[in-house]
């Protein structure tokens, strides 16, 4: 296991020092390496929950985000903005809801969005974990250089998403660094809304150890080829204790 503060630096170094890579690499070997390098499959399967505290800066305004995910699918993101907390993307086992930024009242997501969300419940903590049991297909889709790093491009096809009542394939491309075998970018085509067809990219770097697991602490979110919004993870808590009442949809209707 490499202990790296700065993955990108290491990747660049690796790129210069070795151009050799296995010709007989398979998707399962990539995933084996990935799970082994980041904490071990069994340990991931035993995870009960994760709490991440993150910060982002938008237009000079610092926004704090608490991201909480439990293995049973319950989750929330708490966005703290100018002294106010906004619960977003909350799932209580039945309803998916968010607080309206204008009225500060909780509102349920529309039925289709909730239905689509429910297809992601089995993706904690990682969609590649037991992907065959989930019925996902995973294949090696080539090799690509991402921000100077050589990567394996892995395609994963998950449960279909519904868009205006019609089923659409859900596909993501993960770019695994050839040296460290961790994904440094994830591309997903936006399926619904005015942005449909756009490729959304998430970049992941600065992997750090937390209780034997390795997580990316530096994220970027944006459109492939466009500007990225930087998100910095400040801390990650394994198996946090949470008050179950925070997930419950508080509104009447």
């Amino acid at each position, binding site marked *: 296991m490499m202990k790296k503060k700065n993955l990108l630096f290491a990747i660049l170094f690796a790129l210069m020092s070795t151009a050799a890579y296995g010709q007989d690499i398979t998707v399962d070997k990539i995933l084996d390496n990935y799970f082994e390098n980041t904490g071990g499959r069994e340990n991931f399967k035993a995870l009960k929950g994760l709490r991440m505290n993150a910060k982002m800066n938008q237009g000079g305004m610092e926004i704090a985000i608490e991201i909480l995910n439990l293995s049973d699918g319950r989750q929330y993101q708490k966005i703290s903005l100018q002294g106010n907390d906004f619960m977003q993307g909350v799932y209580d086992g039945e309803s998916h809801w968010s607080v*309206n930024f*204008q*009225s500060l*009242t909780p*509102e*349920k*997501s*529309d*039925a*289709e*969005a*909730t239905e689509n969300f429910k297809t992601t419940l089995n993706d904690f903590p990682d969609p590649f974990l037991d992907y065959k049991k989930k019925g996902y297909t995973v294949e090696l889709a080539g090799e690509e250089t991402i921000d100077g790093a050589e990567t394996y491009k892995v395609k994963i096809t998950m449960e279909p998403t519904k868009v*205006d*009542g019609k089923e659409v394939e859900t596909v993501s491309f993960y770019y695994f660094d050839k040296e460290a075998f961790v994904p440094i970018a994830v591309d997903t085509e936006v399926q*619904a*809304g*005015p942005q*449909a067809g756009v490729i959304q990219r998430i970049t992941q770097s600065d992997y750090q150890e937390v209780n034997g697991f390795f997580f990316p602490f530096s994220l970027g979110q944006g459109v492939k080829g466009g500007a990225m919004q930087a998100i910095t993870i400040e801390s990650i808590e394994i198996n946090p204790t949470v008050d179950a009442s925070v997930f419950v949809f508080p*509104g*009447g*209707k």
Partner: protein
Amino acid sequence: MKRILTLLMCGVVSMASAQQNEIVLKGKQLYGDMRARHIGPALMSGRVIDLEGHPTNDRILYVGSAGGGVWKSANGGASFQPIFDDHAQSIGKVKLDPKDPDNTIWVGTGEIWTRNSVSVGDGLYKSSDGGVNWEKKGFENSERIASIEIHPENTNTMYVGVLGALWNDNEERGVFKSEDGGETWDNILYIDGTTGCSDVIMDPNNPDILYASMWEFRRTGWSFNSGGNNSALYKSTDAGKTWNKIHNGFPEGKLGRIAIAVAPSNSNILYSVLETEDEKKRGLYKSLDAGQNWELLNSDFGLVVRPFYFSRIVVDPQNPDVVAKGGLFGSISRDGGKTFRNLGFMHADIHDFYFDKKNSDRMYVGTDGGAYRSLDGGTSMERVANLPISQFYQISLDNEEPYNVYGGLQDNGSWYGPSSSPGGVEARDWNVVGVGDGFRVLRHPTKKILYSEMQGAANVWRYDMERLSTKTVQPLQVKGYDKLRFNWNAPMAISEKQPDRFYMGSQYLHRSEDMGATWEIISPDLTTNDKSKQNQSESGGLSVDNSGAENHCTIFTIAESPLNEDVIWVGTDDGNIQVTKDGGKSWSNVTTNLTGVPANTWVYHIEASVHGEGTAYAVLEGHTSGDKNPYTLKTTDYGQTWKSIVTDDIYGFARNIQEDYENEDLLFLGTEFGLYITIDGGKNWSRFENNMPPVAVHFIDLHKKTNDLVLGTHGRGVIIIDDISPLRQLTQEALAADVHFFETAPAIISEQSTFGGTASEMEFVGGNKSNDA
């Protein structure tokens, strides 16, 4: 130019023989072939109130706008043409005859989303020839018509829902029925003088079943009330003979504005959005038994926000579970109203929807920023690019060649653009110089600097047009003075004598000598400071709505004399006219010298004259207290005495006046229904009709170099009448002569490029000034 002269001369000659004494010229004879040109802009467009489609031809679509008339598309909403240019431009409802939809069109005038700045309508109109000619069919005093329903078989049976007057009690309200195709009308549901019909709809599968929502509402210049014990939802099953409230499942207590819709594909399914006393009971109600019982399904903010502005529900014609509701962003449900999501990105403030009858993925949306079309069920939205229905509050000009027009718009920021441009004035020519609601934009007289603002002077920007940099410069509260009260449409003014001087008005007059960097208060509170008109935090009725739009007891107009910088006029929204002759050291309240004007009538505009230091014009208007008369007075002695210069020739209230710089008797008056001109100092007025719709003219400026008259309209963008100088020469002597040869300035051969612009075929392009000599 030659043709104008010939026509003017013909008019002169023929009139001269008919009149012995004073010669009066009116209307089209007066104006010859002087013609207004429209330069838009259309890129931000303006408020759309109502959308109407054709029952069988999916290429035909109508847009009813807040202040810019009715527009028809024959290409599925790709582009639109105006079809209602001779009548009131504020529209509430457009309806096609179900049996003769190609020819018979009904238009109810008077917009129904009753914000503070709404225009007024003047009745119901019918066209029998597809919109070429229009005939008024009653409801002269209705002010606002919300609904028109026509029996699908017997089209002589019609129902009209009259919302009625916003600012005053009025009996012409409620549900009306005609059985002779609109010739005569019976009021079949009337509550009282403050309660109007906000919707009457017919069950599409049984024309004897009607639903009517009645709304108790009132605006004043300083408050708004939505709701009361008279607001209710009614049903009739006998073609309007009897009506019963259908409130089973509604909460107790007062109700506000009620939205109502029937699913066209299943008459048992009704949707209603209620504004209620109990905040927790607001939201979307659904009935599965044609109104016998109701259940609250959803209280999302997007459904309950600002009921006075957003109370339209539209159900997909084919699928009773697909429901769209107006709101800040527009909401759509695909599960029968249980859950909603926002529609795709559009200009905020969504007022109406239209689903294609056969293909619901094709839909249209009306917003504060024009009309949008979607091909994917409202997910991706595209704005119609040729609807120049922009709503200016004010305009101003500069001295560039060609000169630029500056102005601010309702919910559409502040802009400037050229009066002419190669290929015409198009979207790319306009520059945005402010956000929010825009009002006044003034160009510094000598520097490439302008001032712009947003609502309530929350921001006043000094904008460097070369460096594209901004600095906020609004006056702030200072020790020893009350909290500043700015109008929603806060006044600013510059000086002809001191280019860096900049005025703003709160309840005080603020003066800056350094382009807004520092300010000095140079007056006491110039308003009536009536505390009973300053409770905006309680305004709105059942849904408190304190946006600042009702702020009152504020200065509304400021004018420094072009002849003497120490003479400054101020007019207030609560009816005061104040004048200083010593640069603000002392003030005289000359309000009581006005004659024939009710107390506290809004002083909308004061024009300080170039023809005398003590000469000024005051335009007052009282429509926010229900008084639709025009008031325009002239003083030549600093306000000691005033003389009314309006006549019965003028239809509707007036907001603005512009004097001619050379001929004191030539005046231009901007009214709710268009532009009026006098050539005899106000003894006679004529409406200017040549390509000039009766749109609300909020501001007029006269360009000193070109003599172009430039109008800021609240619904049709910027309209220019090029070179009005021939009107200056229409004196009694000229009129009496057998032949009068007009003096004409030397013609200029333009060297502007003729390479043209970049607009697509579907974009609006404003006309250029004619180069013909």
